[in-house]
């Protein structure tokens, strides 16, 4: 039973150290304003650390290990630890308490070039006898980044290595439908080359990627992804996305739009993404799919953030009864510059109102940033 619970917990609760797109427009204009990576997530830059201190209730030194382990200017170190406890109904009832993430980051810069490495926990697997095994540490991301102007967070960037293509809003929660079914699933990193251009007013990312020949990827496809975002004002942006994925047995063509609007008065950020997918399956069948998410984020109080989200996924819009919907309510409390407590909750239905089974969870998660 223990291995069942662990597997279930990873299924429903695992998160990766992604950025919070809720902060874009509400705190700053681009992901790179706060992160070292052009796609956000992972290591924070100096401004990102300042934001982490500013938004937290109790502050504390935001630097790596509270600046007790100083590093030279050319080297940045960090890490993320996450664990969750809670109740899941699927429709069986489970109580869970598990570690979820243990990743370390290192990045070194030399002139216009930067090396970025992520290493840590990977999911368990089963051997040929059916015994659950802990897998050795792995590196989900490792790449070389060329910056046209390394002194700023703008301009031309070229990345080569293993990473997640920039695509859509990039929520941290992998079970958001536009991630799970939208081309950027958990452990979807693979090898590729990206050309990216970022300015305060707009940004564009084009990535070519290949089926990973070395490290396991959940989405073994060759293809390309493009995402562009234009900021109409400092509080509003629109985006467009497209992706082609080719596996050994199907092709998927994705196209979609994103939008964000920050209401400065009530401090509420609205954002949404809707994606249309055409899947061409070898041997016949070409289902058209729809994936969408909408999120309202209220920066309610010093250190407290409340997210209310809705998601919809239909694996074949021609067939009735295949739509799935969820409603999320999440409360984040940024206690210090390094620690965050999050209450996640979800209620999910199939073909809303048709009487099919539903599911849901309530999880309390702790997230510690080194």
């Amino acid at each position, binding site marked *: 039973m223990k291995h069942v619970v662990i597997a279930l917990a990873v299924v429903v609760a695992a998160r990766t150290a992604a950025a919070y797109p809720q902060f874009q427009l509400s705190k700053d204009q681009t992901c790179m304003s706060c992160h070292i990576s052009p796609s956000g997530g992972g290591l924070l830059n100096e401004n990102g650390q300042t934001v982490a201190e500013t938004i937290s209730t109790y502050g504390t030194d935001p630097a790596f290990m509270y600046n007790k382990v100083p590093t030279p200017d050319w080297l940045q170190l960090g890490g993320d630890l996450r664990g969750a406890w809670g109740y899941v109904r699927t429709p069986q009832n489970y109580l869970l308490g598990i570690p979820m993430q243990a990743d370390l980051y290192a990045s070194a810069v030399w002139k216009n070039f930067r090396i970025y490495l992520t290493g840590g926990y990977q999911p368990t697997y089963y051997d040929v006898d059916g015994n659950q095994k802990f897998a050795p540490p792995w590196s989900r991301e490792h790449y070389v980044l060329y910056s046209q102007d390394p002194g700023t967070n703008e301009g031309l960037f070229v990345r080569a290595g293993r990473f997640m293509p920039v695509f859509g809003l990039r929520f941290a929660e992998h079970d958001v439908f536009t991630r799970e079914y939208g081309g950027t699933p958990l452990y979807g990193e693979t090898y590729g080359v990206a050309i990216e251009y970022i300015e305060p007013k707009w940004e564009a990312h084009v990535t070519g990627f290949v089926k990973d020949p070395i490290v396991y990827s959940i989405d073994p496809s060759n293809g390309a992804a493009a995402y562009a975002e234009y900021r109409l004002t400092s509080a509003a942006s629109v985006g467009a996305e497209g992706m082609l994925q080719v596996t050994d047995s199907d092709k998927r063509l994705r196209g979609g739009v994103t939008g964000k609007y920050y209401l400065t008065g009530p401090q509420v950020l609205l954002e949404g993404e809707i994606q249309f997918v055409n899947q061409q399956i070898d041997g*016949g069948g070409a289902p058209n799919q729809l994936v969408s998410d909408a999120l309202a984020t209220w920066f309610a109080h010093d250190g407290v953030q409340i997210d209310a989200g809705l998601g919809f996924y239909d694996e074949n819009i021609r067939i009735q009864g295949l*739509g799935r919907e969820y409603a999320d309510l999440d409360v984040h409390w940024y206690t210090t510059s390094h620690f965050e407590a999050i209450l996640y909750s979800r209620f999910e239905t199939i073909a809303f109102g048709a009487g099919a089974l539903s599911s849901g969870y309530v999880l309390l998660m702790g997230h510690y940033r080194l």
Partner: protein
Amino acid sequence: MRGCNVRGMRLAWFAVAVAVAACGTSTDDRPLTVQYVTDAILRPTCGGAACHSSFATNRGYVLDTVDGVRSAVLGTGGQLPLVGLGSVPAYDPDNPGNSEMIRWLTETDPDGKGIGRMPYDAPMPNEDIRFLENWIAAAAPGAQCDPDQPGGMGCNNMDLHVCNSDWTFGALVMTCPTSCSQGLCQ
């Protein structure tokens, strides 16, 4: 006014979702092929990284590749054979609801080991379960027999067939002398 904008956007989003859900037809004309079963249903629903992916091979099932699904259905091939529910057949065209895959999708704890209904994180839509039953009732095209098995033959319901390269039954060779198990005459 801003509150109205927030409510308006939420209502608009929900209206679009409901409208799309209601637009579908009740006629299920999806192709009954192993490729469709794998790429449209099992891979996105069951083949998650920590679940029945090629990496995790949770309890021996690999459901994110066509070959993995074939092996899971037949209990043969390069992957682990499926765990099995005792005397329950891997797939039963005459009674699809009794097939192992369907029982995991519709029952709570089918093998009595405290393992809940699949998928763990959220139930599979009934329309997809019906589609899988239809595929099994059609003798699981594309996953009927393994051409790499001895003699390039496979059986089902006592009938031994030549196995085509696309994992479908070819010509009838003979009736199994005693029984058919895991695609081979015993």
